[in-house]
């Protein structure tokens, strides 16, 4: 059939099919992405006996066609798992710890990243390229190769005057290494963004009698909110998700972050899946909110910054 033989209906049909295919595939991908979350939620609301049946009963209610249509309850929904999880482990404290560590890391990296990014994009000086490469090079170094020395350093701080806020089981003990590991990304995002700003912006400030530092704080930084948001979100997500250092540095239960808290749920003899699914779902709530509020910023930030490498 050549193009000429196509009737208007054929074309309309083709267009509808294309749209259906497109949105169908988008929906399928969304479903595949979110199914685990849905499954964790369903599992966490099941009474403990219901978890271990096969074939699985998916929904609490089902429609039965035996003798007319009726709704049949398959299992009762319960918050029992949530009660057990919260009674057994300080899940709220884990989340708070993660929040403090992740925010602290993000703030530190914003400050250091903006200073370095400004110098490396808008100032002229010797060794500019070597300094940029040196900073970016640290992003290539594996985390495991920094773990053991920092761990023994933290142990040596134990019992000294600073052990209250630095070393094992302290927030700064995680914030400082995290910030160092993510700093190259923050520097990269800032320098890429600053480089695109027009020179006239800075010249105007200098003409008006501001010093270079004044220009940075009064003019450059206020127009750099997109770069700040991107850097903050990426660093925050990294720090929130980190596991290797959190596992090693936080040995007290009350100081553990959410990743370590969840990973160490249960013991070697049994895995209490009901309580684990409840704890996992609790840990996902802030993340779900975060994603729905900030995904636009993440995509925009990536599109304008990192991608233009």
């Amino acid at each position, binding site marked *: 059939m050549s193009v000429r033989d196509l009737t208007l209906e054929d074309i309309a049909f083709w267009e509808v099919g294309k749209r259906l295919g*497109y949105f169908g595939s*988008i929906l399928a*991908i969304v479903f*595949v*992405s*979110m199914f*685990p979350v849905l*499954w964790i939620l369903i599992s966490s609301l099941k009474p403990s006996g219901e*978890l271990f049946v096969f*074939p*699985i009963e998916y929904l609490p209610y089902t429609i039965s066609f035996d003798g007319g249509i009726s709704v049949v309850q398959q299992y009762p929904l319960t918050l029992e798992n949530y009660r057990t999880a919260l009674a057994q482990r300080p899940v709220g404290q884990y989340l708070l710890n993660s929040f403090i560590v992740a925010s602290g890391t993000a703030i530190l990296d914003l400050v*250091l990243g903006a*200073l*370095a990014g*400004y110098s490396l994009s808008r100032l*002229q*000086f010797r060794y500019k390229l070597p*300094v940029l490469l*040196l900073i970016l090079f*640290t992003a*290539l*170094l*594996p985390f*495991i*190769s*920094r*773990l*053991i*020395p*920092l*761990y*023994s350093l933290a142990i*040596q701080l134990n019992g000294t005057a600073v052990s209250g806020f630095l070393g094992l089981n302290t927030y700064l003990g995680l914030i400082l290494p995290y910030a*160092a*590991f993510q*700093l190259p990304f923050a520097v990269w995002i800032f320098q890429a963004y600053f480089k695109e700003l027009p020179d006239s912006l800075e010249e105007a400030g200098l*003409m008006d*009698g501001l010093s*270079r*530092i004044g220009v940075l704080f009064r003019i450059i930084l206020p127009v750099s909110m997109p770069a700040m948001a991107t850097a903050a979100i990426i660093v925050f997500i990294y720090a*929130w998700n980190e596991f*290797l250092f959190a596992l*090693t540095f936080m040995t007290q239960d009350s100081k553990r972050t959410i*990743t370590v808290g969840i*990973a160490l749920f249960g013991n070697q003899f049994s895995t209490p*899946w009901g309580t*684990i699914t409840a704890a*996992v779902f609790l*840990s996902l709530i802030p*993340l779900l909110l975060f*994603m*729905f509020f900030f*995904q*636009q910023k*993440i*995509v925009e930030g*990536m*599109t304008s910054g990192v*991608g233009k*490498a």
Partner: protein
Amino acid sequence: MADSTANVQDTIARPGKEGLRARFRRYRELRLTEEELATVLLTPVLLFLLGLSFYPILDTVWASLHTGYVIELPGQQREFVGLENYRQVLFPIGETRFWNAFGVSLFYTFVSVPVELVFGLGLALLLQKEFKYKYVAQAAILFPWALPTVINAKVWAWMLHPDYGVISDILVRLGILAQPFPFLSKPDIALYTMTGITIWKTTSFMALILLAGLSSIPDQLYEAARIDGASRWRQFRDITLPLLKPTLLVALIFRTLPAFQAFGLPFGLTGGGPGEATSTLVLYAQQAAYNNPGPTNGGFAIGSAAATLITLLALVIALIYVTTLYEPEVR
């Protein structure tokens, strides 16, 4: 007006031409040359990285050449042992844990990254289009990337439970399986399963980076190609792919190095098992360092040697990527 011009002059002024007193006055008034300002702004950053990135690496190398004490108690001096720790990692008697982990990490990395790249590119092409409620779809699709690795491991460990896993259930209902399948406890299957999970998790991140690259390709190029009668496939091959190359480099490095350092996923999913079937290099190094108590804490020396080897391998991978894919500023 004259004053502000002088100000600009000062800011740009190079040191050397001015006297010491004038220079101090300038410092007091916080008017620095660009070079001085760069020094002031960069020094804290570089000190920070020196202390928390470069010093630990060097210390790891140093520790890998000595006997391992975490804390030197009186009478316990670290002794130089040359490459003995490396010998114990690479050629221990009666076991091949390092080489097994090396194989696992290589498979895991170099199977998952190319697959993610292909899927991620497809997803990025899909997401280029604008539609209503796209933000909801985008948030949902990006969610697996933001999910903490070790929590993701627990989620999948439950979904792939050998007796009551939902994945088994779905496959049984579809008639693909006859009974629940132990995806994580069969030694020859577990690594494939783990690789599949990471593909599920990070494809969206790949898509995100590639989306950035796609959006920087000017539309006029496609228009010109269309006018010249180029097919969709020709447009993709001759415009999209070549212009996407710099982004591909970024995406490959950003995914390969973390995949090569996988730790949370095997830790939470299988603990490296069954046997050693899913033990990655970093899991091996961590276990070598921390699961080897004993009077000398010998594990820290062995762990340091393993960590040093991992560093070298990571740098080799990065070097290969940069030399094969980097093109200095094509545009």
